[in-house]
């Protein structure tokens, strides 16, 4: 009965959402009672969807194959963790997860938004409810996770073995929290457009929500990248796969939104721009979640799709995204823009940053959609691959990274570029020194790689330089500087940490791409091969039996600078589906990794073995983790800060 009760709970939640949306949009400026009704409704929606989700989990854990979804995507032999993650390892279940996070956000607005102006709160909750109603209705009527089977099969099919990994427990919830978190910013933006007023409270609300979503999205993307890296078995960490792009675009837009929201909170400026970015970011999030499910894109992430589903999704996307932009076009001119500033200023730097990020997002969007449009209009099929993205994306990001360290040094409202350049000279010198030193030591040739490395060091050292400068090291006594450093607001540290993280990722990307070593060979048991300064020996191959798979495990010994270590890559065949997977073995040496993959048996009894040595590859993900940590650090600083202009000339004052 729990399954049917869960089904009913989901339906009731969607019904409450539908009624809330209509009541809120129709009555936001009529009655305050509506606001109270909707606050309660948002909390109920969350409780009910959580109950529905719980019912699904229970059915999967107890292997209740009278639930069609459990029959199709679970198996009684799967370990408990994978029985649970099977719930969202498919289209229908992942929709429920998506909606659950959406209603969680709605409930959070309801609880924390007690002091928001009622009209704003009503409109925001109405938009959230509209999203729940639309996508909940879509779930119930085209992708219902609660469909039943009678008679119930005795055994289920299996969760796709590639997904039977701890990654499925972490990656989708993080990513969805990121995607869906932006819905709150979106709802705030729509509320501002409908009411025609950007409340002061708006500014205070958007930054924390953006930050929170952005942190989760950053972690989700990094986790997805690392998962692909260790699971797909050929050592790549980013594939420019349409779905990766789909998660990367909202990240780029969200990063722009984050910086823009900063200006709005501190300086009351860039309001319309922030609204625009909020709409774009969530629109790209919607695209990211649903483009794969519409059947127009195929990739490793595609779930089985049917035409009705695809059509409904496209209609929903068109309504939400198109509606939001139409509303923006009609209403934005009526909004008051806010503070003025000179082109050379912190505000100006942030706008420049946003333009670069928006252009990068547009380039990725073009590369992802262009083949589809071309095929739809001319019937020609082309594939836009990594070279296109690396070139265009690299060309846009390189100048952004060059100017990045200047931003935090600029004064609000009116900055002095020459003075900033002087203060950054130390960081620039250090970066050149480090890059040259490393290239000289590793004997690298003249290519783009040293320049990329230089860029990474420049960004990282520039971030540190900002802290050093703000604390006044060199200008005053050490003791006083340390006291000033400790006294700096946490947001200063988070800015520096985030930018330092960018530098780390850039260094990791450049090093792992330019200096990776690869070895593909056939090895007999007892044979050794050398890669870099590591000697890899194949001791033998064992047959092992896992809970729901049979595995061949290679026993390798790796000797080298990091001592002697054992590595055990596997080739598995899953019992229920008969599907093979490879499990690479990865050893970490400092920031570098040795990646070992066991291949098929060769005719002479040997084994195909693929080995990669990837220098500093972990910096790619550690950099992302640093960015996310910086975001959380910034979230802990909830003090309202006003960005005070450093110098106000008579002229600037008169311009207002």
């Amino acid at each position: 009965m729990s399954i049917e009760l869960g089904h009913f709970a989901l339906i009731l939640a969607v019904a409450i959402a539908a009624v809330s949306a209509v009541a809120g949009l129709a009555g936001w400026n009529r009655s305050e009672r509506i606001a109270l009704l909707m606050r309660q409704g948002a909390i109920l929606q969350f409780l009910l969807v959580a109950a529905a989700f719980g019912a699904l989990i229970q059915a999967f854990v107890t292997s209740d194959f009278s639930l069609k979804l459990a029959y199709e995507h679970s198996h009684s032999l799967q370990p408990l963790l994978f029985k649970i993650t099977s719930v969202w390892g498919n289209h229908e279940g992942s929709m429920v997860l998506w909606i659950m996070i959406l209603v969680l956000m709605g409930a959070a607005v309801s609880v924390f938004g007690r002091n928001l102006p009622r009209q704003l709160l009503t409109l925001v909750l109405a938009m959230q409810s509209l999203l729940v109603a639309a996508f909940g209705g879509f779930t119930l009527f085209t992708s219902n996770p609660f469909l039943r089977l009678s008679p119930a099969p005795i055994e289920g099919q299996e969760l796709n073995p590639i997904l039977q990994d701890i990654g499925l427990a972490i990656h989708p919830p993080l990513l969805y929290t990121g995607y869906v978190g932006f819905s709150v910013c979106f709802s705030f933006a729509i509320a501002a457009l409908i009411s025609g007023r950007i409340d002061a409270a708006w500014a205070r609300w958007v930054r924390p929500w953006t930050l929170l979503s952005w942190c989760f999205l950053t972690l989700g993307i990094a986790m997805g990248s690392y998962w692909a890296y260790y699971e797909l078995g050929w050592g790549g960490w980013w594939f420019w796969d349409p779905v990766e792009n789909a998660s990367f675009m909202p990240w780029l837009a969200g990063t722009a939104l984050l910086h823009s929201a900063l200006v709005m909170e501190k300086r009351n400026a860039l309001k319309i721009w922030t609204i625009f970015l909020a709409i774009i970011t969530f629109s790209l999030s919607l695209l990211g979640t649903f483009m794969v499910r519409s059947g127009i894109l195929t990739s490793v992430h595609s779930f089985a799709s049917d035409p009705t589903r695809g059509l409904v999704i496209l209609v929903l996307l068109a309504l939400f995204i198109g509606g939001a932009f139409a509303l923006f076009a009609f209403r934005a001119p009526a909004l008051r823009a806010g503070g003025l500033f000179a082109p050379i200023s912190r505000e100006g730097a942030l706008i420049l940053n946003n333009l670069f990020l928006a252009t990068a997002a547009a380039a990725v969007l073009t590369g992802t959609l262009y083949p589809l449009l071309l095929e739809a209009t001319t019937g020609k099929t082309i594939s836009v691959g990594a070279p296109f993205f690396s070139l265009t994306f690299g060309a846009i990001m390189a100048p952004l990274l060059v100017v990045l360290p200047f931003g935090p040094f600029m004064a609000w409202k009116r900055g002095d570029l020459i003075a900033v350049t002087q203060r950054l000279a130390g960081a620039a010198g250090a970066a050149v020194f480090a890059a040259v030193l490393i290239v000289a030591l590793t004997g690298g040739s003249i290519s783009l790689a040293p320049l990329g490395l230089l860029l990474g060091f420049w960004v990282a050292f520039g971030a540190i330089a900002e802290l050093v400068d703000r604390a006044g090291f060199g200008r005053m006594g050490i003791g006083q500087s340390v006291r000033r450093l400790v006294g700096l607001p946490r947001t200063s540290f988070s800015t520096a940490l985030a930018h330092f993280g960018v530098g780390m990722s850039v260094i990791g990307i450049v090093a792992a791409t330019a200096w990776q070593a690869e070895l593909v060979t056939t090895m007999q048991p007892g044979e050794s091969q050398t890669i870099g300064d590591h000697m890899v020996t194949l001791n033998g191959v064992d047959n092992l039996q896992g809970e729901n798979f049979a595995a061949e495990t290679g026993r390798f010994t790796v000797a080298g600078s990091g001592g002697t270590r054992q590595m055990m890559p596997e080739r598995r065949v899953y019992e229920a589906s008969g599907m093979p997977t490879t499990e690479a073995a990865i050893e970490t040496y400092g920031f570098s990794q040795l990646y070992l993959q066991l291949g098929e048996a060769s005719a002479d009894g040997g084994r195909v073995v693929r080995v990669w040595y990837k220098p500093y590859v972990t910096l790619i993900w550690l950099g992302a983790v640093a960015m996310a940590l910086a975001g959380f650090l910034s979230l802990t600083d909830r003090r309202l800060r006003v960005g005070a202009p450093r110098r106000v000339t008579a002229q600037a004052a008169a311009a207002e």
Partner: protein
Amino acid sequence: MTIWLFALLLTAIACATLYYAGAGRTVNATAGTADAVAEHFRAQLRAIEMDAAAGRLGTIEATSAKGELAREVMRLKDETSDARPVTGGKAAIVAAVGLVAALAVGTYAYLGRPDLPALPLASRDVATENGLDLNAAIKTIETRLAQTPDDLRGWQVIAPAYIQLGRYTDAVRALRRVNELAPPTADTQTDLGEALMMANGGSVAGEPLELFRKAAVLDPKHIRSRYYIAGEETRAGDYVAAVRDWNALLALGKGDEPWAVTAKQGLAFAEAALDPGAAAPAEPDAAQIAAMVDGLDARLKSEGGSIEEWTRLVRSRMVEGRMDDAQAAYDAARKAYPDAKLRTELDVLAADNGLVAK
């Protein structure tokens, strides 16, 4: 119907809290727009003063920041005409709550399956469910066959089901009907012979052997029947005929078929028995027994076989002392015969000798 009870209870609770939140209490008319704006600017002013006091902000900067703030406040005061919204609309609340209930109940009535209980795997008797399915299917066919006893297809379908359930006498009856209703072929004759053999506890002598011989006449290349004939000749000690028939049988195949192993062993045994020069063992020696058991094992695993054959394999493995193989054979047999009723002898044998029913 309990599900409806719970569903309606859930709806009632949800609607009651919604109604209470919206209409059931007086509206606390704080947090108007103007208040929130004023509060926001007060907080900003405090922030500037704190920064100035802590020395993070110079006096001039602080003053100009305050100036900006003051201008912003003035401008917003002009814009915000804080007309407080009316607090009516109880009727709308009632309508909304009613709509929620109607929507939810209506949609569930359309989409839901209140008639289906949850069926966690642990609460289900898998063996019985499988058996019941087969028994139910047999019942249906039997009823139909009672009305139309000339339905050849029906008899053909029901015979293997009888064999699977161990009802060999019924299987014999069904297969006799098959042979009556249509001209006998090598296959139908052999099927009947096999069923009789199983009904006789594995003995081929007598009617089964005659049937196999008929089948071999009907189709000289018929492998299954000739296999049984040669096996029976070997068993009965007619080694001359056995050698001839094993050779003829092996000539029909390529040599890599699953049955070829047993055929070669049978041939070797018969030849050894014929050759007076060799130290012909009256009884097969240990190596030969082992080879024959291995052959049986291979055949059962690839082709399957009767529960008696599985039992024989498990017993042989235990006699050889290869308990792991015995366990493996037992596992395979349990998989092939999930219905516990059929495995009584095997289960007893296994339990007596410490095999585990996984």
